[in-house]
């Protein structure tokens, strides 16, 4: 690591996360002019974007090679009052909470209280959404059956393809003008809408070019003042780069990285889309620039590494924008889920691993930063040395990169109707979500609490916590004479609640399409320009809305317990079981011990339990998959929790698997914490009994002691473990390599372990930043010790 990178990395690590009111002030000024009443919505949004970019402060950090910050300084984070409005209490919580805080000074509070709050109260998109959703949705939401992603952040979840490496914004503008010129106002009823959207895209494209120009100007100013001639030359070179990109296609690796970074800033300034934005297949996109630079002598391996490291630091400077309300209190990560993809296949189906792939792995290992997150795509065509090199990074214990099955992802995408080539250009983003990069809007709509559906079924549709009839009446469970009858009632409740969620999704999609278009983001995702349609309105080639199932292990074990104890072994009656649950097992301790220790469990390659996993998965799939969205797409499922299994657990009483009330559910498709006792192969076998190819992603977490990674032979065995899971169509697996003792020590002495990063669930986080319950849970997760 060069001194320059060391300094920048330290600066990034030490920067304090704080709230900046700059964007909120600018967007409020813009809307306060009332100009929005004279313009179409997309044009207005593009002009607001231009207004912000023309005025926001320019930040160039000392010594950096890639320039551009979203806020006025690293980790200075803007707000988006047009999406959701922070109250003064929210700002206070963000400032004072112990974990994942955002400092908020008096000036920001004053501005909020005098300008931002008075202007936006009742006018934010969140207000619009919440007042439009039906009562059934609100009841189910409050009861904790699902979360809503678009409530506080804009739809995003998209990843860039290779478009910007081939085309500058000027080229996109000519295409836009051609599209406008060929609009048919006689036969195309949508022609006017298309014209406005295309106009908006052009305004947004020009806004970013001007923004880069402001950077070029400032770089030139700095160069004039610079006394060090070497840095002066660098600053002038950077200025030249900012004059060339994003207007024109990049010619060098440095230009390619700076272009991407400007686009990234544009996307996360326009709105606050989920999972920030993501360059995706970085080794594929950058390899031609790298090869050319090495050939013509303008790059060395060392200078390439330094540029990439400088690029890495930019991501770490950009925390996820802070939430409001309850989620401001609970939300516990700075991560904005940008997931770099390495390896996988080329569009022609051949092995995509190249020299730059290995250089990028070196960068990941050396930088050891929270952001960006990284993953490797492993296809059967990728070489073993690539997989083994990656495992050696995993061994160092910061939870990155995670492992994805390229061949499964391609089949998942093709099943959903993507072309083979678009599928091969895809990968995974966010936690584990599969997508066709550069051509797909794949929106995560919310987590869905599978385990709570059973609680509802056992209460005939009544939610014991909110004391409301949230579900439908499926019968008194004490009268059920067979397990099939129970499963049928469960299916009806599941169908009802997913329908409530889907209805909400379709309403929210329209609200975003009509009120919060993103003409800037739309420039980069095909075919928004040629369709003349916004990303949020279904302009992309593929449009998918996901509902993410949570708690597979918990629901499987709970259903298995009922099948085993009530209907087959008859160790307890349904009445007795219900009594034990409502008492939270008080006076039923012995029975609870039987449930916990002597009942078949998911995660042990035991079909008796795993059959219930298959069944629940299939019911969830049937209830959601293929249902249309209101922007021309389809609903799909995936199975991942991020940290929602903790929240979802907190709204459920005791469950028949022996879990006590309010405790976390199982996470991802992993077994319930401690329920697996046959080792990792049995876990992988159980997890592969659901058909991953019917999803858009599943998440499997395995915790290993570092001793598992000692020596090349051990690494080779772990590599085979991954290959075998992927042969069974497993979508994703990740490893936490850390001892429980280390974690316990970190809980006691957080100061000594400031840099301890652990795999949470689809992403990594600083252990110190996790809530105590999540910390406890990570400690508990089974450690597979050597045998």
């Amino acid at each position, binding site marked *: 690591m060069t001194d320059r990178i060391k300094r920048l990395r330290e600066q990034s690590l030490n920067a304090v996360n704080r709230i900046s009111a700059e964007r909120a002030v600018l967007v409020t000024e813009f809307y306060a002019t009332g100009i929005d009443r004279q313009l179409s919505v997309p044009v207005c949004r593009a002009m607001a974007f231009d207004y912000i970019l023309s005025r926001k402060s320019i930040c160039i950090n000392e010594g950096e090679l890639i320039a551009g910050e979203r806020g006025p300084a690293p980790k200075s984070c803007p707000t988006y009052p047009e999406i959701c409005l922070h109250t003064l209490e929210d700002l206070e919580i963000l400032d004072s909470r112990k974990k994942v805080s955002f400092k908020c000074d008096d000036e920001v509070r004053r501005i909020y209280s005098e300008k931002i709050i008075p202007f936006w109260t009742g006018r934010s998109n969140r207000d619009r959404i919440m007042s439009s959703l039906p009562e059934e949705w609100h009841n189910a939401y409050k009861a904790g059956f699902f979360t809503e992603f678009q409530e506080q952040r804009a739809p995003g979840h998209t990843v860039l393809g290779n478009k910007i490496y081939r085309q500058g914004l000027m080229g996109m503008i000519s295409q836009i003008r051609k599209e406008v010129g060929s609009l048919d106002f006689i036969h195309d009823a949508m022609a006017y809408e298309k014209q406005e959207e295309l106009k908006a895209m052009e305004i947004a494209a020009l806004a970013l070019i001007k923004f880069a120009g402001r950077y070029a100007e400032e770089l030139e100013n700095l160069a004039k003042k610079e006394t060090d001639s070497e840095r002066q030359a660098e600053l002038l070179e950077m200025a030249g780069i900012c004059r060339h990109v994003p207007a024109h296609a990049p010619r060098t690796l440095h230009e390619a990285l700076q272009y991407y970074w400007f686009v990234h800033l544009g996307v996360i300034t326009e709105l606050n889309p989920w999972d920030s934005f993501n360059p995706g297949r970085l080794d594929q996109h950058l390899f031609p620039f790298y090869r050319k630079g090495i050939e013509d002598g303008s790059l060395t391996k060392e200078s390439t590494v330094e540029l990439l490291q400088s690029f890495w630091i930019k991501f770490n400077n950009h925390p996820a924008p802070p939430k409001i309300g309850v989620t401001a209190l609970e939300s516990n990560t700075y991560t904005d889920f940008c997931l770099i993809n390495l390896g996988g296949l080329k569009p022609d189906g051949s092995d995509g691993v190249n020299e730059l792939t290995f250089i990028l792995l070196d960068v990941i290992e050396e930088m050891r930063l929270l952001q960006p997150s990284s993953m490797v795509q492993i296809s059967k065509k990728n070489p073993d040395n690539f997989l083994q090199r990656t495992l050696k990074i995993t061994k160092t214990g910061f939870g990155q990169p995670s492992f994805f099955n390229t061949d499964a992802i391609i089949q998942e995408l093709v099943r959903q109707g993507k072309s083979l080539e678009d599928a091969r250009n895809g990968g995974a983003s966010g936690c584990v979500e599969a997508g066709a990069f550069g051509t797909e809007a794949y929106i995560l709509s919310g987590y869905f609490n599978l385990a709570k559906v059973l609680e509802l079924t056992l209460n005939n549709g009544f939610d014991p916590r909110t004391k409301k009839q949230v579900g439908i009446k499926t019968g008194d469970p004490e009268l059920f004479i067979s397990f099939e009858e129970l499963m049928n009632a469960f299916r009806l409740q599941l169908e009802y609640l997913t329908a409530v969620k889907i209805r909400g999704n379709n309403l929210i999609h329209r609200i975003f399409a009509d009120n919060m278009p993103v003409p800037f983001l739309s420039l980069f995702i095909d075919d928004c320009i040629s369709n003349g349609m916004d990303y949020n309105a279904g302009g992309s080639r593929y449009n998918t809305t996901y509902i993410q199932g949570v708690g597979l292990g918990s629901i499987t074990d709970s259903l298995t317990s009922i099948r085993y104890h009530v209907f087959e072994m008859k160790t307890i009656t349904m009445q007795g079981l219900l009594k034990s649950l409502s008492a939270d097992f008080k006076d039923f*301790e*012995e029975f*609870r*011990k039987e449930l*916990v*220790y002597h009942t078949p469990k998911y995660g042990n*390659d035991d079909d008796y339990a795993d059959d219930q996993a298959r069944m629940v998965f299939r019911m969830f799939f049937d209830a959601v998959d293929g249902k249309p969205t209101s922007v021309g797409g389809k609903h799909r499922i995936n199975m991942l929790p991020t940290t929602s299994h903790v929240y979802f657990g907190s709204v459920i009483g005791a469950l028949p698997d022996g879990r006590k009330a309010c405790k976390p559910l199982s996470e991802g498709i992993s077994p319930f914490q401690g329920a697996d006792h*046959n*080792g*990792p*192969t*049995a876990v992988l*076998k159980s997890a592969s009994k659901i058909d991953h190819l019917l999803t858009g992603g599943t998440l499997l977490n395995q915790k290993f002691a570092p001793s598992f990674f000692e020596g090349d032979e*051990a690494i*080779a*065995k772990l590599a*085979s*473990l991954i*290959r*075998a899971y992927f*042969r*069974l169509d497993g979508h994703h697996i990740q490893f936490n390599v850390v001892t429980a003792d280390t974690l316990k020590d970190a809980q006691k002495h957080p100061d000594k372990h400031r840099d301890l990063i652990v795999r949470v669930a689809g992403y990594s986080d600083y252990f110190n930043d996790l809530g105590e319950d999540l910390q406890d849970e990570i400690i508990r997760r089974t450690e*597979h010790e*050597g*045998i």
Partner: protein
Amino acid sequence: MVEGLVFDIRKFTVHDGPGIRCTIFLKGCPLSCRWCHNPESQAEIPETSTKTVTLDGAIYMEQEVSGKWMTVEEILEEVEKDRVFYDESGGGVTVSGGEPLFQAEFLLNLLKGLKTRDLHVALDTCGYAGWQDLALTMDYIDLYLYDLKLMDDILHLEYTGVSNKPIHENLQRLARSGKKVVVRVPVIPGISDSESNFRSLLAFLEPLRPGVNEINLLPYHSAAENKYKRFGKVNSMKGISSTPREELIVRKKELEGLGYVVKIGG
């Protein structure tokens, strides 16, 4: 149907032969090594022990039976579950104990079953068996993991309860047969980690080369202390700690200098 007494079937074993393996532990052993890691594997009958289970601070005493009578088919069904992992890693099945040859007839049936399923099979044996029983396994075994515990016969008798003569003779015959054999040497502090034992080992192995060319040094660990307590057995090794790793590395280097392939920990 003949049944065998099994005390454990473990998946994802990574130290008992190549690749990812499943190890079947048969119960019953003619030896009673003082350092035995699996004292519950010695008796040839199922044994009951008391296990404590804690939940929410409450302690429950539960009876647990070690040893389960299983048919070859039942074992094969369990083994088959992990086939994809054997295939990917070049792994397979290891039959261990106890001493697997202690149930010679059942073992032979089991090995035949494993071999008809085209699995790589390793046999982890102490070598204390009739030559006829060992010879019959040769058609089905791809790899022998063969223990040499103590070279001095008197000490062997003292610490394991049996003479090492048949063990040595069997290994000599096995090595001549051309089967692949890895010799495993438990390094027990104060017992088998002596200089003289090491020298005798080298002298014994020299004429067996190149048939025997791989040695695993198995460090002693005290993890079994709890088990002794649970099964009400006397642990005469109580409080003894492992041989320092550096000493093992010195041995490893010397063996490697002689051309052996050596691993610490198997």
